[in-house]
């Protein structure tokens, strides 16, 4: 079963890569047939990915939230799922060229980081994980992170389109990119939905840390980075709703927020300190 999980995982990665190329080609060449193939490849990859997670779980009995490999794979899975929701809502394939490769990179990094972990989960640690609060904490934060990624992707597209419009030249890129207000709305809505989820996920984690009476729980590098992520997206919403900040500033802030999420998910994981030993 474990072997089947590995094969499905690589199969999913390959399909996401194919989908990325097809989405990019569709964006450049504007051939509708390629967008259909791209969605098909993403869908097939998603099914293979789901099977891989399920098979891995069944084979090892390891919750898919333990370790870099599992958590990054689950993060990629959530991102693809959220992408499908976005594609359905905004009817734009462009974001596939941004979000699907992001999922691919997350899976590849999970694969690379897999060998670098030098911890064995004790029975006590596994029992700590066996809690609905921990599962919810991880699931909610992953969905929120995917939402932030969508917001940042839309913000990146906003900055790109804004720069094109400022240049006063009618370029092919300008024609292919969506309008400013559409990207702005998508970014704002994604962040507006992701932010309360992120807050709820953080609170669940804090409650669990207090329950276990962990000393200096706030001193964990991942807790601190998540505080930074929370503060960045809080500023985003405050600046938008209270101060009426410019679209450009907000878009940059969303990108900074995504960088913080990446640091939290990947770099903070490699630090040897902290209690987030499960690789969450």
């Amino acid at each position: 079963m474990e072997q089947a999980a590995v094969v499905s995982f690589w199969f999913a990665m390959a399909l996401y890569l194919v989908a990325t190329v097809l989405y990019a080609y569709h964006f450049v060449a504007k051939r509708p047939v390629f967008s259909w193939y791209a969605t098909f490849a993403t869908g097939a990859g998603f099914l293979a990915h789901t099977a891989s997670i399920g098979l891995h779980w069944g084979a090892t009995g390891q919750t898919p939230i333990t370790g870099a490999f599992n958590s990054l794979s689950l993060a990629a899975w959530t991102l693809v799922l959220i992408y499908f929701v976005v594609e359905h809502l905004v009817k734009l394939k462009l974001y596939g060229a941004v979000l699907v490769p992001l999922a691919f990179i997350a899976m590849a990094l999970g694969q690379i980081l897999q060998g670098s972990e030098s911890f064995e989960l004790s029975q006590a640690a596994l029992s700590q994980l066996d809690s609905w609060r921990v599962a919810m904490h991880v699931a909610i934060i992953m969905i929120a992170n995917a939402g932030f990624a969508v917001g940042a992707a839309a913000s990146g597209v906003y900055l790109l389109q804004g720069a094109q419009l400022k240049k006063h030249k009618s370029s092919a890129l300008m024609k292919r990119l969506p309008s400013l207000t559409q990207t702005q709305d998508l970014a704002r809505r994604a962040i507006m939905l992701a932010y309360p989820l992120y807050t709820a996920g953080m609170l669940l984690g804090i409650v669990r840390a207090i329950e276990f009476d962990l000393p200096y729980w706030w001193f964990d590098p991942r807790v601190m980075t998540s505080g930074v992520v929370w503060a960045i997206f809080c500023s985003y919403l405050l600046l938008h709703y209270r101060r009426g900040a410019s679209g450009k500033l907000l878009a940059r802030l969303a990108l900074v927020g995504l960088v913080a999420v990446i640091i939290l998910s990947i770099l903070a994981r490699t630090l040897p300190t902290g209690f987030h030993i499960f690789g969450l």
Partner: protein
Amino acid sequence: MHLTLVGLSHKTAPVEIREKLTFPAHRQEEALSLLLSTPEVAEAVVLSTCNRTEIYAVTAAGTDGSGAVVDFLADYHDLDRHELVRYLYFSEGEAVVRHLFRVVASLDSMVIGEAQILGQVKEAYEHAFANDSAGRIFNKLFRQSFEVGKRVRSETDIGENAVSISYAAVELAKKVFDSLDGRTVLILGAGKMSELTAKHLVSNGVKTVLVANRTYERAQELACRFCGLAIRYDELFERMREADIVISSTAATSYVVTKDDVAAARKGRRGQPLFLIDIAVPRDIDPDVNQLDDVFLYDIDDLSGVVESNLEERMREARRAEEIIGEEMAAFERWIESMEVVPTVAAIRAKAEQVRSAELEKALKRLGGLSEKELKTVDALTTSIVNKMLHGPTARLKMVAGEKDGYTYVEAARFLYGLDSNPEGKAAHAGLIRSLFGRAERAAERAADKGTQSEMGDTIGC
């Protein structure tokens, strides 16, 4: 059968000539009927638009089809034939197919990529179809040309980019706001160009039109045309906060909108973009305004630049359209080749030879033990029978193929000998029957109209 095109367009004739050679819809029936009454013309379609008049005809081989069409044009419009010929262009055979495909793809239009022409060609074909002047060949040719039109529109961006200043402004506004539904436009100055641009914006969904002018009455007058609201000039910057798009076209000699004015108007817009179009010369809006976040300023030169690059883009797309035309031409040529007499005769002979060889082989197996001389004799005998059987029909087929309705014989032969198992995915004889009966009915009607007693058989050459 022979494809012939005689026409004139904006490229070859001035409007004074073009306007004399139009065929309005209500006169198409009469024109088509006259064209078909000439012995050289078997099928005809008349395309008449403001920029072109073209007559597509299937003419009998070995006749002066083009001359007959020119005579028709000169007689119908009462023009001097020699004078008329100066403005006409002529095409024959494959060139006609290419020309029609280029016309439908709007590569031959005054503005490359314009969408109207496809509808106009469809209309011309529908007239011809309704008046029984489009037969087997034109049914295939024109239907395929519509495919070309559709493919060019869907597979290239030939019609995507605006090629006029006012449309370019609308197109850019849509890149800023996605949809213009419910947006507010502020017109500063009541010039003609700003009015035209506002008109396009309103037709694209802009809901509120605010007009500011130094002369309040003039602002009211313009606002009235768009069911908008005239505002006092001193309220301009106050009201600019409500606007999504500002069109400026005043006669002022210095900037009337500065960076500070726009920066102040931008406050409280929650990052909503502001699109400013300055079509005044000298400019009304300080170009530094473009440095502000969420503010996009385009002056007349910027818009002209966009139009120019859009035209270049259309030219690039035109090359892709030519490739599509090439593919579709190859498909049409394959079809038309199947209607040619030489490949048909060759196919009949090949089929007969195949049957002869198979039957001879079977017979020789049964006979057994024949000497070489006997074998040669049997072989020569069967070959001779086949040749004699085929000689008459193939010779007559070659003879009549060049006539006005010759391709119907070719098609009949292909059907009778079973050369096309299922052409076009339809019953093999459907086209033939339609073709024969359609032509027969038309011939009978024409004969009846003339009060003659021509036999139907004469017309179809039986």
